[in-house]
């Protein structure tokens, strides 16, 4: 049997990227950047997808979005805006209990797209970063997503001396799958930590992750210890509540 056909794999990547909720339509350049592919390659893929109606353009030479033909074959995907609406009450409650900022993320190409952000409830000046992209391998959100999905790539940039090596990351991801929650400790920013848990839809598929982030001294008992269990339980409870809202859990 022949191996996987690369161009089909790539076409699938392009479609997944366009399908991700909350995103604008994307240009050839944006897709190429997100998937680390050459522009002519992406252009060729899009032209073919356009012919079969799986992508469309508002204007000739403009940006691409998913085409009508794709919706007709009817795979359901979770819209990021829908996820935010369904998660609103539970992300607020999480922020209140943990007294930390809350973010909800979904995978977008090789990155985590922030689809919702609740400020840390101390009335300090904070800026909404909905729409921002985060590296998956150095955030709790990303680990909680990737542990139950596909591993995006091996180009794992080191942000601090604590950013995990590919081997350590593999071990960590096994733990995430066992525990059903993830954390990062100094891995993106020295002195910062994050905790996240996966959100599941009614098929049990992980469609997002919800988590908190803040300084290590607030999230952990000590700078080299995993996060405080009380905070972990708040995060997991929020993830379960959002999953229930999506029809994903029966308890």
């Amino acid at each position: 049997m022949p191996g996987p056909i690369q161009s089909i794999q790539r076409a699938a990547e392009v479609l997944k990227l366009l399908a991700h909720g909350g995103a604008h339509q994307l240009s050839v350049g944006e897709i190429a950047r997100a998937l680390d592919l050459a522009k002519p390659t992406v252009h060729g893929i899009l032209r073919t997808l356009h012919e079969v109606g799986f992508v469309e353009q508002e204007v000739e030479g403009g940006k691409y979005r998913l085409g009508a033909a794709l919706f007709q074959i009817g795979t359901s995907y979770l819209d990021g805006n829908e996820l935010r609406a369904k998660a609103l009450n539970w992300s607020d409650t999480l922020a209140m209990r943990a007294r930390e900022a809350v973010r909800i993320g979904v995978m977008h190409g090789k990155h985590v797209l922030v689809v919702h952000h609740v400020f840390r409830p101390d009335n300090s000046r904070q800026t909404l970063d909905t729409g921002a992209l985060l590296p998956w391998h150095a955030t709790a959100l990303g680990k909680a997503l990737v542990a139950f999905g596909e591993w995006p790539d091996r180009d794992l940039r080191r942000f601090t001396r604590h950013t995990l090596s590919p081997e350590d990351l593999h071990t960590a991801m096994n733990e995430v799958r066992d525990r059903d929650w993830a954390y990062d400790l100094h891995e993106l920013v020295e002195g910062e930590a994050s905790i996240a848990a996966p959100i599941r839809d009614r098929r049990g598929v992980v469609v997002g992750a919800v988590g908190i982030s803040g300084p290590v001294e607030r999230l952990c008992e000590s700078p080299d210890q995993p996060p405080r269990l009380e905070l972990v339980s708040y995060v997991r409870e929020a993830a379960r509540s959002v999953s229930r809202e999506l029809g994903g859990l029966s308890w």
Partner: protein
Amino acid sequence: MSYIAAIDQGTTSSRCIVFDQSGGIVSVAQREHRQIFPKPGWVEHDATEIWTNVQSVVRDALAQASLSHADIAAFGITNQRETTVVWDKATGEPVHNAIVWQDTRTDTLIKSLGHEDKFRERAGLPLATYFSGPKLRWLLDNVDGLRARAERGEVLFGTMDTWLIWNLTGRHVTDVTNASRTMLMNLETLDWDPEMVSAMDVPLSMLPEIRSSSEVYGTYEGVPVASALGDQQAALFGQTCFAPGEGKCTYGTGAFLLINTGDKPVHSRNGLLTTVGYKIGDEPAAYALEGAIAVTGALVQWFRDKVGLISSAAEIETLARTVDDNGGAYFVPAFSGLFAPYWRSDARGVIAGLTGYISRGHLARAVLEASAWQTREVVDAMNADSGVDLTTLRVDGGMTANNLLMQFLADVLDVPVVRPIVAETTCLGAAYAAGLAVGYWPSADALKANWHKAAEWEPSMEPAARARGYRKWKKAVERTVGWMDEDDD
């Protein structure tokens, strides 16, 4: 540990939310009910279906958190306002579907009652189809034998708060905020006004007793039912707008900007309503000025249910983001005529600026932008009435999950838009009022500490673009008025 359960009987759904002492949400249950449209401009709900839904959301919210009635310190009630129901006192059967606040069937009746400002001084309201009094009168005039039964004392009138409290506790009462929307209550005396009652020609005996918004009306399953507030007033209370000058705008089916004006009613010269904000037990009532917009989320719902381009309300944002602007299209959703600041019941909706260029993405943008431009108009009216300009807008409600809308709102108002950490402030306000009545919370001031900023959107639109957009919006609004003719029905 004990909790407060708030019941929010809204226009599109009924919810029950259980809160803990910090104001955090413990559980939520929600059920939509049918929107019945018998004719253009008519909107009805089945009050029995609503009561059934309320019982089940209460049951579900308690079950979700593994709570029993013994864990609940009090129930609070908040409700869609003005929606009118009349029922048989003996059987509890409604005599007709509830007539919903958006319904325009009383249009000709309103015209026959006199000048728009006839009851402004006493009721704080313009004569309009929106309010309950005329809806009750319509039922008395149009349901066979109803007037005679009313005169014999066999039927009762209520807004949804009254309907629920009667079913929950057996008592026939309403609160001052709901009563202030009937056009039958005097704003100064906070009691039924004999002149308005006789002008509307409704029997006084079928009206409920008017009570404060925060007191124990009775019990349900042994739990005190301890608050009632119209949904918009509940949101004002939930946002802890206790001081004169503090206000909020809530985005649901419609949008409602309310500003606390303290212990005296203030009359508007710019098309705003004067209403009761809340009354806590024996304390003096707090009044409010209100900018009422009939259709905001309802337009999104229409786009979902009647046009079918989206399958959930939240998806409108995804569709709107497929384009960068509205392509020149403006959608004025005057489905129930225009409310504040125009009060034109002869208006109907338009989409202006249509060209072949307009795609569904542009329409989705126009749908969302309509909520923002309508808010701009009531904010302008509020600024003109108060003489001071709004510096930030506090928002709440389900539509605040829509980032595109919130950003656009900040852009067209040119002030920051701030969402508090509980978006469901309607329920929170009802919970607060009930909790205060039973001593679950010590004082209103203690509640202020629970208010936290959860998100903020900063204006970033070019002044010229804002001015051009507003000009186009106003031109589109001009095109809605005078649409209805004498022989339309």
